[in-house]
C-alpha cells in the first residue's frame, strides 16, 4: 500500500507538473503544488480506496491546490487588485449606455456562430491569454467555476462574496473575455 504513491509519482508527476506549470507559469510554484498534491495524497490515501482512477484523483487534488494558490495570490495583492478591478469594471460598464443597453459601434466581430472555434488551437491560446489578464479575484472566480465541479455556493463561501456579487464578477469577467477575444483573435 505504502509504495503505491511512489509508483504514482513516477507515473504521473510529469503530467501533473506540466498542468501546474501551464496554470501558474512558474517552475517553483508548479513544483511546490505537485509536492503538496502528493503529500495530500499520502494523507488521504485511505479515502481513495480505488474508487476512481488515481490520475483523475491526483488531478482533482492538484486543481484544488491551484485554486488555493490563486486565492493566496489574490489576497496578497489585494490593493493592486482593487485598482485593477475598478478599472476593468469601468471598462465593462462602458460597453453599455445609461439605459444599460449595449452601445453598438457597427464594427463588432461576429464569431458566435463559429462552433468549430472550440477545436481551434489559436482561439484556445487567445482565450487562455485573456483569462490570464483578468484581475486575480476575477480569474479565481472563473477558474473555480470551470476547473472544478464546485457549486456556486461553495465558490461564494471560499471567495467570501454573496451570490449576486459572484454573478457580477462572472458577468464582468465574461464581458472582458468577449472584448479581449474581439480585440486579439484573428480570423
Amino acid at each position: 500500500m505504502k509504495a503505491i504513491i511512489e509508483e504514482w509519482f513516477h507515473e504521473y508527476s510529469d503530467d501533473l507538473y506540466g498542468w501546474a506549470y501551464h496554470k501558474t507559469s512558474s517552475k517553483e510554484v508548479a513544483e511546490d503544488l505537485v509536492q503538496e498534491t502528493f503529500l495530500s495524497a499520502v494523507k488521504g490515501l485511505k479515502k481513495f480506496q480505488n474508487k476512481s482512477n488515481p490520475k483523475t484523483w491526483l488531478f482533482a487534488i492538484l486543481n484544488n491546490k491551484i485554486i488555493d494558490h490563486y486565492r493566496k495570490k489574490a489576497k496578497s495583492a489585494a490593493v493592486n487588485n482593487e485598482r485593477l478591478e475598478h478599472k476593468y469594471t469601468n471598462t465593462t460598464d462602458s460597453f453599455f449606455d445609461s439605459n444599460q443597453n449595449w452601445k453598438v459601434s457597427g464594427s463588432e466581430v461576429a464569431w458566435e456562430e463559429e462552433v468549430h472555434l472550440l477545436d481551434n488551437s489559436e482561439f484556445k491560446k487567445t482565450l487562455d491569454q485573456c483569462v490570464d489578464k483578468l484581475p486575480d479575484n476575477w480569474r479565481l472566480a472563473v477558474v473555480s467555476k470551470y476547473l472544478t465541479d464546485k457549486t456556486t455556493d461553495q465558490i461564494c463561501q471560499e471567495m467570501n462574496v454573496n451570490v449576486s456579487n459572484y454573478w457580477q464578477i462572472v458577468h464582468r469577467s465574461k464581458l472582458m473575455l468577449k472584448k479581449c477575444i474581439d480585440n486579439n483573435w484573428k480570423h
Partner: protein
Amino acid sequence: MRITEMVESKEDTELSFTERIKYRTHLAFCKTCRSYEKQSALIDRALSRLMSSTPKNSEPMDDAAKKKILDKIKRNEN
C-alpha cells in the same frame, strides 16, 4: 439587473416569470444581446474545455525537484 447579466445568472438561478418575459422581449429587439448570448455560451464551452485540456509538449519536472519530492513522500509515509 442588466439584461446581459441575466445571460450569465439564468443558468444557475431560474429567472422569475416577469424577468423571463422582460429578458425575452428585450432580446427580441436587441441584436447585440442575442449575439452576446451566443458568445457567452461559446465562451462557457471553450472555458470548460480549456480548463480540462492538458497542454501538449510540456517540459518534464527537474530530476532534482523530483528527488526532493520523492524523499518527502517517503518521510511522510512513515
